[in-house]
C-alpha cells in the first residue's frame, strides 16, 4: 500500500510539472492547468489512503472540511469579475499561508521534551513564513479592493519600523523554539502576522504586481517547508515549484521597472514628491502648453489611420473601459484599420492584468504586443491611444537622469505619428512624476472618463 501511494505521489508530481510547463504557451495553457488540477486531485486521494501509524483517520472531519472549502472556493471563482482578479488571487494566496501557519501552530503545541532542534526549527519557519504570507496577502487584498488606502497604513520611516519588526519577529520565533509554550508560540505567531502586515503596508499602487508575485512565492515556500514537517515529497516539490515561479515573476516585474527588489520593498518612490517639484521648478514645465482634443477630432483621425496602437493602463481597469475599447477595435477593423495593443509588463496591479481584461472582452491574444514587439511597431503606427496609462509611456525614463523612473523600459509611443492621451485631469501618475509626453507637439489630450470618451468616439465613427 505504501509503495502504491508513493507511486501515486510521483504521478501527481509529474502532473504538476507537465501542468506548469503547459502554462508557458497560450495553446497548451488550459490543458496544463487541468493537469495541475489532476495532480492535486491525485495528491489528495493519496493522502487519504496513505498508511499511517495509529491512524484515527477522522474522515468525517476531512470530507466535511474539503466540501466546505471546495464550495466556497468554487463559488468565489465563478462569481468574480475579471477586474477584481488581483484581489481574488491575493486572498486565495493568503489562505494557503494561513493553512501552513495553523498547521505549524498545531505541531508546535504537540512539542515535548524530546522534540529535536531541527524539528522545531522547521515548525517555526513554517509558522513565520505562512503568517507573513497570510497577513501580507490580506493587506494586499484590502488595498487592491480599495478598502485600505496606502496612506492609511504607511508610517513615517516605515522601512526602519519594518527592520525592527523583523528582528522582533525572528526574536520571538527563536525564543519560542527554545522555550515552547502556549504563550511563546502565540507571541511568535502574532509577531509573524504583524510583520507580514507591516511588510506590505508601505508598498502600493504600481508596485502591487511585485508584491503579489512575491507573496505567491512566499506561500509556495511555506508549503514546501511544511512538507519537511510531514516528510512529504509532493508538498516539498509543489511548494518549491510555486516558490520558483513566484520568484521569477517577481524578478521579471522588478526588471520591467528597472528597480531592485530591495528598492521596491523599502518603499520605492519615497522621494518622488520632492524631485517632481524640483524638476518642475527647474524645467519650467508649467509654461508649456498642451493641445486638447475632442472625441470628434479623435474619431476623424482614427478614420483615416492605417495602424492604431492602444496602450492600456490601470486607469482603463478603473474606468471599466475595456468593452468600449473592443467596440472601437471592431469598428476600426471593419474599416480596414489594423489595431494592436501595447502592453507594458507592469501595467495594472498584477502581472498580466491588462491581458486578462482584454481577453475577457474577446480580444485575440495575438493582438496584445509585449514591450519589444510594440516598440518595434510604433514608428509605423499612425495613432496611439493611451488609455489610463501614464508612467509606462513617460519619455523621462529614457532621457531624464534626474527622474525617478530613469532607466525603466517604457513604451516609446512618441515615435508614432500621433498620440492621444485619455486622462481625467492633468494630475501626475502614480509615481508622482510629470509626463513630458503630454506637451509634445504630436500629442493631444482627451480629458474625461475613458469609458465615456471611447463611447463618444465610437458613436462619431458610426456617422463618418
Amino acid at each position, binding site marked *: 500500500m505504501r509503495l502504491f501511494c508513493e507511486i501515486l505521489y510521483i504521478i501527481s508530481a509529474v502532473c504538476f*510539472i507537465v*501542468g*506548469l*510547463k503547459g502554462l*508557458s504557451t*497560450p495553446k497548451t495553457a*488550459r490543458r496544463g492547468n487541468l493537469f*495541475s*488540477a489532476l495532480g*492535486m486531485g491525485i495528491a*489528495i486521494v493519496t*493522502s487519504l489512503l496513505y498508511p*499511517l501509524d495509529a491512524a*484515527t483517520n*477522522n*474522515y468525517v472531519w*476531512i470530507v*466535511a*472540511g474539503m466540501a*466546505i*472549502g*471546495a464550495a466556497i*472556493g*468554487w463559488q*468565489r*471563482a465563478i462569481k468574480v469579475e475579471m477586474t477584481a482578479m488581483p484581489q*481574488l*488571487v491575493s486572498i486565495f494566496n493568503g489562505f*494557503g499561508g494561513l*493553512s501552513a501557519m*495553523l498547521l505549524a501552530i*498545531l505541531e508546535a503545541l504537540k512539542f515535548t521534551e524530546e522534540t529535536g532542534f531541527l524539528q522545531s526549527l522547521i515548525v517555526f519557519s513554517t509558522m513565520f513564513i505562512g503568517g507573513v504570507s497570510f497577513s501580507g496577502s490580506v493587506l494586499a487584498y484590502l488595498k487592491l479592493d480599495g478598502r485600505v488606502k496606502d496612506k492609511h497604513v504607511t508610517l513615517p520611516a516605515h522601512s526602519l519600523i519594518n527592520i525592527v519588526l523583523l528582528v522582533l519577529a525572528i526574536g520571538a520565533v527563536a525564543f519560542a523554539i527554545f522555550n515552547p509554550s502556549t504563550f511563546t508560540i502565540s507571541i511568535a505567531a502574532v509577531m509573524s502576522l504583524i510583520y507580514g502586515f507591516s511588510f506590505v503596508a508601505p508598498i502600493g499602487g504600481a508596485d502591487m504586481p511585485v508584491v503579489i*508575485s512575491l507573496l*505567491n512565492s512566499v506561500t*509556495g515556500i511555506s*508549503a514546501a517547508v*511544511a*512538507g519537511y514537517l*510531514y516528510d*512529504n*515529497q509532493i508538498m*516539498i516539490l*509543489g*511548494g*518549491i*515549484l*510555486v*516558490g*520558483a*515561479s513566484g520568484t*521569477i*515573476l517577481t524578478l521579471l516585474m522588478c526588471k520591467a521597472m528597472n528597480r531592485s527588489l530591495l528598492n521596491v520593498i523599502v518603499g520605492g518612490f519615497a522621494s518622488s514628491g520632492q524631485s517632481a517639484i524640483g524638476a518642475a521648478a527647474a524645467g519650467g514645465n508649467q509654461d508649456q502648453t498642451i493641445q486638447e482634443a475632442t472625441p470628434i477630432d479623435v474619431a476623424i483621425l482614427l478614420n483615416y489611420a492605417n495602424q492604431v496602437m492602444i496602450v492600456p493602463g490601470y486607469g482603463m481597469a478603473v474606468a471599466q473601459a475595456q468593452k468600449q475599447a473592443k467596440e472601437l477595435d471592431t469598428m476600426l477593423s471593419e474599416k480596414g484599420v489594423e489595431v494592436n495593443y501595447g502592453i507594458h509588463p507592469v501595467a495594472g496591479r498584477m*502581472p*498580466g492584468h491588462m491581458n*486578462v481584461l482584454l481577453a475577457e472582452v*474577446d480580444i*485575440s*491574444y*495575438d493582438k496584445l504586443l*509585449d514591450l519589444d514587439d510594440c516598440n518595434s511597431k510604433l514608428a509605423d503606427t499612425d495613432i496611439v491611444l493611451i488609455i489610463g496609462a501614464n508612467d509606462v509611456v513617460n519619455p523621462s525614463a529614457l532621457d531624464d537622469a534626474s527622474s525617478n523612473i530613469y532607466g525603466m523600459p517604457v513604451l516609446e509611443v512618441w515615435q508614432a505619428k500621433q498620440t492621444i492621451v485619455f486622462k481625467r485631469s492633468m494630475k501626475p501618475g502614480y509615481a508622482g512624476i510629470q509626463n513630458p509626453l503630454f506637451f509634445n507637439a504630436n500629442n493631444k489630450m482627451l480629458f474625461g472618463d475613458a469609458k465615456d470618451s471611447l463611447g463618444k468616439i465610437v458613436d462619431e465613427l458610426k456617422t463618418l
Partner: protein
Amino acid sequence: MGQFLLDNIQSVYLLVFAIYLGFELISKVPSVLHTPLMSGANAISGVVLVGSILFIRSADADDYFSLAVASVALIVAMINVIGGFAVTNRMLAMFKKKEGNK
C-alpha cells in the same frame, strides 16, 4: 546538522532539483500568461492541504481543539486549491486566438 543532512540527502537533492526545475519551467512564459501562471501556481501552493489531511488523520478522535483548527487549515487550503484552479481555468477559457482576424 551535518548528520541531519546526511540522513535526508535525498530530500536535499529533491530540493535542489525542484528549484532548478521551477526556474527552468517558468522562465519562458509570455507576458500574456502571467496572470494565469500566477493563479495556477497559487492553486498548487494549496498542496499544503495534504499536510492538514495527514494531521487530521493521525489526530486523536476526541481532541476537538486540534481537529477544529486543522479543519480550518484544511478548509482555507481547499479554497485556495479549488478557487485557484477554477479561476485559472475561467481565465484561460477567455484567451482565444481568432482565426479570421488576421
